[in-house]
């Protein structure tokens, strides 16, 4: 199976430089075209099955924002990251006030 994050050129070779266009060309926007169906049809392998899968690979932090060491550790531990997101979602001003 092709690496999900690898984008190939017309000759089937991995691209060294990716553009936004490349990413968007690879998205199966509707999500209805399943991988197995594509494989059977002989169509070229695309790296992303759904838009969600594509966005999950996106470097949201940006090139300039350096994540903290703790943030990096949390990124590695998926469960801790999910917990942090849930905590962030539930915070209110009163919670913030109690922390200071």
């Amino acid at each position, binding site marked *: 199976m092709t690496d999900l994050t690898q984008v190939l050129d017309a000759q089937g070779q991995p691209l060294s430089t990716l553009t936004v266009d490349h990413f968007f060309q690879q998205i199966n926007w509707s999500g209805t075209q399943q991988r197995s169906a594509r494989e059977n049809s002989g169509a070229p392998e695309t790296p992303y099955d759904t838009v969600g899968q594509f966005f999950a690979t996106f470097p949201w932090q940006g090139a300039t924002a350096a994540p903290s060491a*703790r943030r990096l550790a949390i990124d590695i531990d998926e469960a801790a990251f999910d917990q942090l997101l849930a905590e962030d979602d539930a915070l209110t*001003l009163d919670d913030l006030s109690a922390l200071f």
Partner: protein
Amino acid sequence: MDTPSVSAHKLRQQHPQKHSHYKFSEFFQFNATEGTIADWNGSRNIITSEHFIIGLLEGLEEEVGAASAAVMYSIGVEWGKQDSLFFDQWFEREYNIRPQQANLMFLLETWWWPFTAQGWGRWEIDMTDRQQGFMFINLFDSAVARTLGDVGKPVCYLYAGLYAGFFTEMVRKQLSCIEIQCYSMGETYCKFLLGAKDRIDAAAFWLNEGATASDIENRLRAGYTSS
């Protein structure tokens, strides 16, 4: 820059429930006959050039010397306090919910969007360390730092004061803020530390001793709070 105004925004009157209103032509209302610019929330805005920012900072420095940093910080604090009261009103009016009941991240993003539209830069809040009583704010495209360029020292005292004043009012606790990394020091973005006064004082001491933002983060996480 914005100042309180009595000018009502006509587009907002027509679409009071519209929240995605930060497009330049929608957020600002230009009144050619009065020569005024009002924004969506009814604040009067003034468009200034980079020369104005340079003139303000250098003029102040010429008048009061090194104290200009403290003066700018104090101006920011007052601005932040006033703006928190103003924000309280327009947030509740627009979303029909009191700020205390709103989701925190949504609340803070909503507060900063007008600033972004006005050219004060984008921000990113890092609350990873909130349990330890401090948090970081990353600011991209600071209007002050971008104008002054690489001068080798932090220059965004106005922003630090703004954050200190705003958060002090919002959380009802006396908070301080310091810029520990600045675009004007050759960094790619500005970084502010917000917390109780003792922590900020310690960070100020370390910064004066030559510590980097990373050093300060590590010391705070290790629990050091005194200089």
